[in-house]
């Protein structure tokens, strides 16, 4: 879920850009040579995959996949998601440029946390540990992002309490679906033999 233009107060937008710039700095430093096209193409995969409508009950959800992206890309998740969100803002006017900093941070920082948490599990590589990694990546990615979005909405003012609560609740089905999908993605990648940390 990305926040639109005009919702957040100025200090929040500026803090978002400062934190995202720091994340981008570390992320860009960590990639060189062949990792540049790799990050770009994987970013395109996450962009396209997040447009799939995944059915759940009577409705369907779009996935965030930030936990999965973080687990695979490490700090490079910052530039990867920044670019994806920039294109969403330019091509479809989802999100926007002034909120790009906040939106990138909301998505990418949980990805980095997920990276450090699931790294040992991916290294272990047993079926159980890969499933645990998938579940953890989804829980950290989605709920941390939901917490950031809700906290930012709360910061606008007291009239936003209900908006923030509903925004948080909307993430629960996404987390549930992502836990299953992430686990299968890790198992698939393990079977196919590409390094789980790209």
């Amino acid at each position, binding site marked *: *879920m*990305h926040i*639109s*233009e*005009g*919702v957040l107060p*100025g200090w929040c*937008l500026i803090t978002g850009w400062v934190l995202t710039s720091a994340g*981008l700095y570390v992320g860009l430093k960590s*990639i060189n*040579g*062949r990792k*540049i*096209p*790799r*990050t*770009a*193409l*994987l*970013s*395109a*995969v996450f*962009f*396209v*995959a997040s447009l*799939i409508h*995944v*059915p759940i*009950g009577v409705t369907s959800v779009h996935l965030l*996949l930030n936990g999965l992206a973080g687990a695979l890309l490490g700090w490079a998740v910052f*530039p990867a998601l*920044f*670019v994806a969100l920039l*294109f969403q*803002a*330019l*091509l*479809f*006017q*989802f999100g*926007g*440029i*002034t909120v790009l900093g906040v939106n990138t941070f909301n998505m990418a920082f949980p990805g980095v946390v997920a990276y450090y948490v699931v790294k040992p599990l991916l290294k272990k590589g047993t079926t159980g540990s890969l499933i645990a990694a998938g579940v953890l990546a989804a829980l950290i990615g989605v709920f941390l992002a939901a917490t950031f979005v809700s906290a930012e*909405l709360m910061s606008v*003012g007291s*009239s*936003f*309490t*209900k*908006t923030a609560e509903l925004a948080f609740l909307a993430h629960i089905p996404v987390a549930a*679906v992502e836990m*299953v*999908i*992430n686990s*299968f*993605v890790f198992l*698939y990648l393990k079977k*196919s033999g*590409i390094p789980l940390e*790209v």
Partner: protein
Amino acid sequence: MDTATEGEKVETPLNGEGLLSRLDPRVKIVLFLVLAWTVALAGNLLQVFAFLPLALLFYATAYRKTATILKLLLFADFFLLFVVLTQLFLGSPYEGVLIFFKSTVIVLFSLLLLTTSSVFDLLHALHHLKVPNKLLQITFFFYRYLFTVKDQLQLAEKSAKSRGFIPKTSIQTYKTYAYFMGNLLLKSYFKSENVYKALISRGFKGYFPVFRHFELGKLDVIFALFTIIYWGVAVWRFYL
């Protein structure tokens, strides 16, 4: 064999439309940032309305695309709809209206100043505006291969459908989608290796040679002066 077609061309929604598309994207990006941040920092409706005439004036240059603009303004953003509705019914209606207008004015600026240039011109302009080259390379490759990846996903979906796959709430469905993603990741991983080798073999040094260079014309200067004067007067009258 890679049966996916090479990416169809997708462009910014108003590319090449109206007078603003003829201006230098460097000027437009800088002006957009000034205007968008000023509106984003507005604290009341009056401050937002001060910029509405300018946004409408810009819109008038691309009036032939009214349907596209309205569609993007009204229906593209579910989050905005969600915030405005929850504010109108569960929070403060004034906040809801304020946010609606702030967002509308900023999105109008974004549509008419940014998306009237092509993606490539915008990236080229960002290079002149000192955005880190590595980030621009990632952006360029992302744009180049986005639709190749999308075609691959559509092909996978079509092939699953032709084998009787119907998406529903089941582990089987989630597994199928996960394998789609795994497959896309795998293909993109190998594709990126080939892209890298192709770049190296052509002596790529991190910069794309461009055929057309930007030149700051008379029209750009007049437009920039007009916009900055408007901005100055609006800020002086309504912000200070």
